[in-house]
């Protein structure tokens, strides 16, 4: 039914995509595409619409104008849901539950990547010791790592990461870069926002610059 992505069509593409809030343009119109193995870095100052762009791509906000395509087909809940993984300002996990309980729940919703397990992804992000602690006992950086572990556990191929470097130390930043690189090496793609304070590791990554 749904064929795996054709190599010719980009995983995700935007055509004349623009969004305005109360008729005040927030961003756009933008044209860009995201192909397998590609990372696009969205840069811009505070208030330039980076988060809004990602929320529009994730389908949480309706596109004001223009079009979003997945695998060359117009975006719909069916073409988007399950393959887009979203890591935003809000962790998307319950603080009273442990990382294991949260991740198991999300794996129940999204399915699980072949060969990945809750324990293995927690180990990969370096906080396996916190697997069964309630999230509220974790530091902000550790919580962010649990969020990263989610990306490794769930099977989506398009990562939309909003400020993934926030709250992370130097090692954490390297970890994010390494995870993105590994994801792209296996045919995935990532769209990453950053307000520019962090230098993205991959020199080949493309950049979208949003003006405030």
């Amino acid at each position, binding site marked *: 039914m*749904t064929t795996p992505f054709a190599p010719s069509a980009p995983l995700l593409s935007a055509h004349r995509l623009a969004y305005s809030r109360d008729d005040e343009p927030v961003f756009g119109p933008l044209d860009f595409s995201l192909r397998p193995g590609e990372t696009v870095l969205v840069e811009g100052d505070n208030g330039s619409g980076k988060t809004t762009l990602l929320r529009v791509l994730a389908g*949480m906000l309706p596109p004001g104008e223009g079009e979003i395509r997945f695998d060359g087909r117009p975006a719909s809940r069916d073409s988007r*849901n399950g*393959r887009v993984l979203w890591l935003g300002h809000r962790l*998307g*996990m319950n603080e009273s539950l442990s990382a294991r309980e949260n991740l198991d729940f999300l794996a129940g*919703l999204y399915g699980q*990547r072949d060969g990945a397990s809750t324990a*293995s992804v927690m180990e990969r992000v370096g906080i396996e010791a916190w697997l069964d602690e309630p999230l509220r006992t974790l530091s902000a950086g550790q919580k962010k790592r649990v969020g990263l572990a989610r990306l490794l556990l769930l099977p989506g191929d398009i990562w939309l990461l909003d400020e993934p470097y926030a709250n992370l130390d130097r090692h954490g930043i390297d970890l994010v870069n390494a995870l993105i690189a590994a994801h792209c090496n296996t045919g995935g793609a990532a769209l990453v926002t950053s307000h520019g304070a962090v230098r993205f*590791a991959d020199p080949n990554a493309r950049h979208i610059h949003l003006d405030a």
Partner: protein
Amino acid sequence: MVTAVQPIANSTPVAPTTDQRSSGTLRACAALLRRDFTLAWRRRGELFLPLLYAVIVAALFPFALGPDPELLGRIAGGVLLVIVVLAMLPALESMFRSDLEDGTLEQWLLAPQPLALLALTRVIAHWLTTVLPLIIVMPLLGALLNLPVKVLPVLMLTLLLATPLLVLLGAVLSALAAGARRSGILVALMLLPLAVPVVIFAAGAIAAAQSGMPYVAPLTWLAAALVLAIVLAPLACAAALRIAVEA
């Protein structure tokens, strides 16, 4: 600098196919139920509060009205019905709030499962954890208020039909108000008027049982409304949750 690039779990990420999705639907509902039960268990102290509230209010009536057993017995059915409705209200308000605040709803939205189905599952979990205990203590409260024994089964049956209906309605209103900054007691204020017809039919059944009359008709109306609500309320709920996440 970039550390050595490790392959992620030796696998390529592939979007799930439709077949995988439909088979995953049950698993997703089960996962949500398990999660909500775990959370409820972790906050089991909070679950006792509505119970305690119901017991205290029921205990207040003999004091307020005098301990005339005949008078108490006559009004017990209706009083218990109203106590259950009131005890349910506070929990309904926050049905989706914490999930909206910590971003879990965003994850629901992007999951490959229908949002309405997740909302329905949440309603079921909510009913099982917060309302079912109230129904279970009904015989105790009935005894406290001298409820005639023959009315008790009808009261239980009525509550089994009326409370899911109220939770479904409450879920829609709770989802609608979730995105509002100042919701306060808005959900209660919106739900109570809508609960009036439900209470009227439920009270009709109880009153009929009390006076030895057939009580099937009002229960059938409740059942009809419940059947409609089970299908329509989750759809409305899903639409409301999408608005809530737009913030």
